[in-house]
């Protein structure tokens, strides 16, 4: 009798340990890594990516192990960081800045079994996806709000680099503002950096001195928002809710919501269904969002903004809808026409008609 008990105990033990081991093997966490161009403390671009990473962690819990590396320079070091992460067993690596494009591709070649996701890039491979967001939809909404809220009819725009994404933003904002207020003028200042609080503050101040009472930015810090708060004017948060830095000044913020996309991609790696893709989502898919509209907005402006957001969400509104001419007067979009992604939007290198200054060459 004891022998039977003993053998059963052994059987039980074996079954238990095998299932435990097998279960353990299946339950091994997927390792995902994120490379950031700046510090998560920028409260802007990088911060939002980090929010996205945390979203994945929250929804996948022990099924995922996340590594983040901040302030990785875009030069030759980036490739090495990617390789280190790959060597440490990460199965999917998100590289969150345009300048990582070529290092990402080189690393992808070295590590064909690792999946790479490159933000705002245009080159793909079997194991490299690209993703970006239709930020210009967000610009459309804030452009309309700006057009209605400005009293001086001067809008200041702090721009980083004259690349298509930034120019799309300028054009979309301008067209939207102009559509509700034909008298507006846009002042554009280029700071040639994604993140330079000192310069951004100076740029904001310069435009405020020149009469701007609304500030928009395509840079990553909260400096301009703080300037606006101090000078009693309005501004819009960029990539992230900057309300903490401009409680009265922030009318709303364009929020980059990467979380759901990141979750989807990491899960795909886990399921084995990941495929190289190019994603360019907007308001409708939830990638571009807005912080709560400020109480400072009068009821009709609020209604206008909500309607625009609703139309974007429904897919019935395209921020670039003709008739629109290029800055030199030549026609671009006919009445009711919307532009194709490529080449018009993706390689946009012209201002629309009405903008005074020139794009730096």
């Amino acid at each position, binding site marked *: 009798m004891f022998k039977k008990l003993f053998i059963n105990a052994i059987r039980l033990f074996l079954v238990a340990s095998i299932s435990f081991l097998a279960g353990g093997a299946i339950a091994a966490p997927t390792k995902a890594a994120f490379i950031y161009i700046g510090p998560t403390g920028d409260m802007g671009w990088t911060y939002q990516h980090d929010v996205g990473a945390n979203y994945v962690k929250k929804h996948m819990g022990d099924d995922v192990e996340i*590594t983040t*590396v*901040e*302030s990785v*320079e*875009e*030069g*030759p*070091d980036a*490739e*090495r*960081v990617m*390789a*280190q*992460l790959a*060597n*440490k067993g990460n199965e999917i690596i998100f590289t969150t800045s*345009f*300048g990582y494009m*070529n290092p990402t591709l*080189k690393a992808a070649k070295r590590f064909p079994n690792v999946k790479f996701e490159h933000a705002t890039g*245009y080159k793909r491979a079997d194991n490299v996806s690209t993703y970006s967001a239709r930020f210009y939809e967000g610009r459309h909404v804030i452009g309309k709000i700006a057009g209605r809220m400005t009293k001086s009819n001067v809008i200041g725009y702090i721009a980083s*680099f*004259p*690349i*298509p994404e930034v*120019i799309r933003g300028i054009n979309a904002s301008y067209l939207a503002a102009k559509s509700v207020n034909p008298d507006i003028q846009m002042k554009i200042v280029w700071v*040639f950096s994604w993140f330079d609080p000192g310069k951004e503050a100076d740029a904001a101040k310069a435009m405020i001195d020149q009469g701007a009472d609304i500030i928009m930015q395509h840079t990553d810090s909260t400096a301009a928002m703080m300037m606006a708060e101090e000078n009693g004017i309005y501004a819009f948060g960029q990539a992230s809710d900057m309300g903490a830095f401009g409680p009265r000044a922030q009318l709303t913020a364009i929020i980059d919501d990467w979380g759901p996309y990141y979750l989807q991609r990491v899960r795909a790696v886990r399921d084995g269904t990941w495929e190289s893709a190019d994603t360019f989502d907007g308001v409708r898919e939830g990638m571009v969002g807005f912080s709560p509209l400020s109480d400072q907005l009068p009821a009709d402006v609020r209604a206008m903004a909500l309607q625009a957001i609703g139309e974007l969400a429904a897919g019935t509104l395209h921020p670039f809808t003709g008739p629109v001419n290029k800055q030199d007067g030549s026609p671009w979009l006919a009445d009711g026409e919307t532009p194709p992604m490529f080449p018009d939007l*993706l*390689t946009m*290198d012209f201002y629309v008609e009405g903008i005074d200054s020139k794009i*730096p*060459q």
Partner: protein
Amino acid sequence: MIRLQTRTDSSTLMVFFSPLLALILTAFSTFVVFFLAGVDGFGAFYVLFIEPLTSLYSFSEMLVKAAPLIMIALGLSIGFRAGVWNIGAEGQYVIGAVAGSAVGLYFYEVEGFWLLPLMSLVAIIAGMSYAGIAAFLRTKYQVNEILVTLMLTYVAILFLSAMVHGPLRDPDGFNFPESRLFHDSATLPIIWQGTRVHIGLAVAVILAFVSYFWINKHITGLQIKISGNAPRAAKFAGFDENKTVWLSLLVSGGVAGLAGVFEATGPIGQLVPHLPSGYGFTAIIVAFLARLNPIGIIFSALLIALTYIGGESAQITYDLPNSITSIFQGMLLFYFLACDILIRYKFVFTFYQRQ
């Protein structure tokens, strides 16, 4: 009371012991920093200094990082010996990269083994000319070269930005501020297959040996040595100070320019605004740590490269900021400079007042 007194003979013991002492002191201080940061000291130490040596890949990356450091430090050491302070090697590095790359991009459609040597030559000349500005200003107008080379560094970086935003920008690159990727003939050959170690490393090591023999055996090298140690004696001997200034700046500028084009055509593969990664300044530290000795420079460059790679690893594994590398390098230099004094001076305890 403790005083520093000149030794009658340089202490040979200290020549070998002082770097070791400096390393020990730095290691100890780094432990303290880790402790204050709430990080496991031994683990971080391992990741910073030992781990990069354990994998072939990290070791190869150390070599990739060391190559430009060796080259630039060699050039700088010549000037430093003679009291010519080229602080703007970073600027010459950038100018060399831009000039060499421009040539490579111009011949974009053309293949040929002559292209890389041409690009290198252009880069050297560009770096030399850029440093030459400082030499000219110093010899003709006695303007301090520290400030001129430093100011020119900023100018060079802005120039690079202007170039990649404009004339050298990739026409198929959607207006992004990057140049085309270099084609095959304009890409630096890899000498260790499977890694990024390129021919620049070989050039650097060869230059180190050439430099060593030149300083110690060639008359001009000896002139430089003496000009630095005993300027008045050098004047009496008829060594032309102006010639020394020109020579030092031209050589350091040329080598820095070469390092720049190597970095652009090697690990990076194109011209980007982020080309300047501080090698010009780090090389100054490398040169000092090696006591300006060419062979020593190879080792100190490897050490510094090690701390960079290790620092990155520490960032990934322990979430330590990469500033820890700067802290370490700064401390190392502090301790090294201080310990080095013990070679020529010694501490003397006096227990009574000197009359």
